[in-house]
């Protein structure tokens, strides 16, 4: 029994030392009212949800604000829901955010000139493939006689 006491003390000390310190990096205040609470009207909530899934989180920049646990994303979710509830149009809210943060904040693809090569690429690839197939068929047909 006496032998076990030092072992127990040692384990207690190691446990205490290895316990991680709590993080103080984010606010301890309660979240904004509609950060994690849906709107009562299902149609309005659907509008808000669609918009939130296509707005980038400013903190966790690979996520949408709908997916992010960051405090700022929570505030933005609440802000968007409140605006939708007041009757604002989702695209107007998106434009308002783009005016302040740039195109970067929106995941929705646009028809900006810089994106034209990207839009055109599938058609160009398909055309090139078609030409290749056609030239091969012509060659094969030529070899028959």
């Amino acid at each position, binding site marked *: 029994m006496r032998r076990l006491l030092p072992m127990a003390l040692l384990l207690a000390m190691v446990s205490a030392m290895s316990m991680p310190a709590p993080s103080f990096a984010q*606010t301890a205040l309660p979240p904004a009212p509609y950060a994690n609470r849906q709107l009562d009207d299902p149609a309005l909530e659907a509008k808000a949800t669609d918009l939130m899934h296509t707005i980038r989180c400013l903190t966790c920049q690979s996520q949408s604000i709908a997916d992010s646990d960051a405090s*700022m994303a929570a505030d933005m979710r*609440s802000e968007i829901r409140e605006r939708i509830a007041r009757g604002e149009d989702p695209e107007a809210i998106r434009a308002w955010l783009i005016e*302040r*943060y740039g195109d*970067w904040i929106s995941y929705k693809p646009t028809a900006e000139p810089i994106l034209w090569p990207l839009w055109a690429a599938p058609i160009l690839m398909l055309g090139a493939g078609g030409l290749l197939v056609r030239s091969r068929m012509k060659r094969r047909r030529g070899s028959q006689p």
Partner: protein
Amino acid sequence: MKKAMKRSLILWIPLGGYLIFLIVASLGLNREQQTVIQSRMIGKPVPVIDLPEASSSHPAFSTGDMADGKPRLLNIFASWCVPCAAEAPQLLQLAQRGVRIDAVAIRDARPDVDAFLKRHGDPFQRIGLDARSALQFHLGSSGVPETFVIDGKGIIRYQHIGYIGPQDMETILQKLKDAES
């Protein structure tokens, strides 16, 4: 012979395309990730928002009050923000040089702001509370700490992202001087 040569050259095209793709992909992977988000509100007026009190010893203010003919700094900070504590000495120096600094505490509470000022010093003239990031959204601000240079007409002239270190002091002072014209 010429025909065979032509055919064999064509066979190298897919490999060439793949190598080009490889080069583009590796360049993309090595490019430094852009995690800093610039505000698009530079050159535009400060959005007018009334802010409640954030501390016991400073008046609340509306951002519209910043258009009073004199350039000043608008500091976005929070008591829970570690880099905000790191920049406090620089802000104190700026205040001692006569720079006017208004602040906005983000998602904060009065006792915490009071404790922060007591511990790290108080360079601010007015401190407003932005409990739900509303002013940040209006400013195009994406985190704390950030500092904006506002000219006498209330136009945003410059955005400093991240904490103000000793190496940033001259830039801030120069932007303030530019804002006086």
